[in-house]
């Protein structure tokens, strides 16, 4: 089908470098590969592009039936969203930010020392501990919904963001332990030995070696925990109400709306997704590691 002969794409240099980790050469694709890839990419991004475009249209253009690609653009939906007649979106956005940021910090505070004990100076049966952490992510969270709800109710923490922070910390801690362990395992052991000979304690080692050297890994871990917390709906919907409701809970108020409001919905969806899009693009290279719970690098 293509004109490229497979043999010509493999004319490797005659003298191969002897280093085992030489830069990988990707198989060169034909023009058809490129076109197909662009077409697939466009198909996948289309709903998001359409959502962004619709959010900049008037309700009349958005609900016109035939796609109004070149309709005039307006920011009215965004200004309506933030200061229109509807519910104020700021409290839920601030709640989401609070829950996501504080739970992510708590996750890192717990996960970094744990990862240290599981990689640098591994304790006995450290793989068992790793797989215990992983197994907590394997079974449906919904099975714990009722007891968690009842506990929140009995302790007066219903509709309280603190409780949600604890839930999200538990939800993300196993992922963070797995990710941080693989980042810490990349630090040369000699550094830790030298620090110990110099009499550095655990806190000093964590502060002076672990944190600076694993900073990029910590950042990626933090971004991924942030995304998962920001996205969570089931527990937020169950445990919060008018006070501590998060941005996804706020969005569910649009589920049953009627009439001309598609542009408004699109603007709301874009605003709520923006932090995740930014965090996700920033963590793109480590995304697969977080999504596979650390199993794939």
């Amino acid at each position, binding site marked *: 089908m293509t004109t490229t002969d*497979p043999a010509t794409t493999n004319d490797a240099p005659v003298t191969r470098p002897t280093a085992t980790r030489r830069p990988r050469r*990707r*198989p060169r*694709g034909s023009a058809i590969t*490129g076109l197909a*890839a662009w077409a*697939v*990419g466009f198909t996948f991004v289309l*709903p*998001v592009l359409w959502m962004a475009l619709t959010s900049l249209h008037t309700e009349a253009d*958005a*609900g*016109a*039936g*035939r*796609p109004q690609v070149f309709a005039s653009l307006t920011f009215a939906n965004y200004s309506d969203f933030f200061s229109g007649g509807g519910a104020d979106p700021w409290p839920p956005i601030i709640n989401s930010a609070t829950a996501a940021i504080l739970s992510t910090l708590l996750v890192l505070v*717990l996960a970094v020392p744990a990862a240290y*004990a599981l990689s640098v*100076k591994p*304790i006995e049966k*450290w*793989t068992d501990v790793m*797989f*215990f952490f992983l*197994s*907590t992510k*394997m*079974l449906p969270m*919904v*099975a*714990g*919904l*009722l*007891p968690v709800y*009842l506990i929140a109710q009995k302790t007066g923490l219903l509709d309280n963001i603190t409780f949600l922070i604890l839930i999200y910390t538990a939800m993300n801690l196993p992922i963070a*332990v797995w990710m941080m362990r693989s980042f810490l395992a990349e630090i040369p*052991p000699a550094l830790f030995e030298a620090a110990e000979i110099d009499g550095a304690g655990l806190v000093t080692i*964590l502060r002076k070696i672990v944190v600076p050297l694993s900073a990029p890994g910590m950042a990626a871990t933090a971004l991924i925990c942030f995304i998962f917390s*920001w*996205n969570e*709906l*089931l527990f937020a919907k*169950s445990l919060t109400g008018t006070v501590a409701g998060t941005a*996804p809970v706020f*969005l*569910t108020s649009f*589920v049953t709306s009627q009439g001309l409001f*598609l542009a408004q919905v*699109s603007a*709301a*969806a874009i605003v709520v*997704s923006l932090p*995740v899009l930014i965090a*996700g*693009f920033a963590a793109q290279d480590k995304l*697969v590691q977080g*999504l*596979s719970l650390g*199993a*794939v690098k």
Partner: protein
Amino acid sequence: MTTVTEQPNARTSSSSGGPGDRPTVSGGSGRGSGGGAAWLRRAPLLPALLFTIVMTQLPFLATLVISFMHYQAYAPDSHGFAGFSNFKAVFQSADLRSSALTTVYLTVTVVLVSLVLGMGIALLLNRSFFGRGIVRTMIITPFLVVPVAAALFFKHGIFNPSSGLINGVISWVWGLFGDTTPPAPDWLSQFPLLSVELQLIWQWTPFMTLILLAGLQSRSHDVLEAAAVDGAGPWRTFASITLPHMRQYLELAGLLGSIYVVQNFDSVFTITSGSLGTANLPYTVYTTVFNAQDYGLASAQGVIVVIASIGIATLALRTVFSLFQPEGAR
């Protein structure tokens, strides 16, 4: 929130030192204050471990206990031992049986289609072409939209019979041929489950793609080169080298995808609100807790979901373990 009791890693503890490349600290065998030193090593782990045990194991124990109780929010004083009556009620209810079937059907469809699409896209992305990085980012984007937001937009902006993109495009294409009465199916009421599946496939294909692409890129370059030297064509290379190598990545992507999709609540809640046969088990548990407020029944449902998931979870743990071994042994 809960854990599997059976772990596939029992063999490591017996093997010498496990897959780690650094010596393991043995419990009490140190000199002098060995026990104390061992606890000092464990100390950094303990906060995370205790927190996880309390937050994930205790709720499940509570669910297990409540599943054997009569416990209705409306009648808070009439708690009592219920035996297996909650479980019996789960199995006797046609709604619950259908939500179990829906869960299986939804999960299998979404995971298989996303896997096949993901594999194809990963093979494309593994080649070099103009703008490869941009296309990769475009493919990832669906995964970076808040799931509720995506589901909400699919409901109103894609599937809606009058303002949705699908019918809009149909009407535009039909209009090109001068047809003024294009078909305008009401996707959400005519194909409710398909609508949910389409949104989920769109959302989960990037996940599969990323894992499978990582797998493709971890193929040994020397083996590929050797195959090329030996005259293996693209198809032969794919069937004899790529597929066997990809097996564990396909398994991992499929199993992790299943774990996530089984739990899906956002799409079912947002797109169809569980109506027209789209209610899956998580949605049903949610409505049993908050609408029916039958806590005993909801707990029995939760226990059944967990038991059903243990199979997938065990397989998934085993796959992660097999990927983890070579990494640790390096």
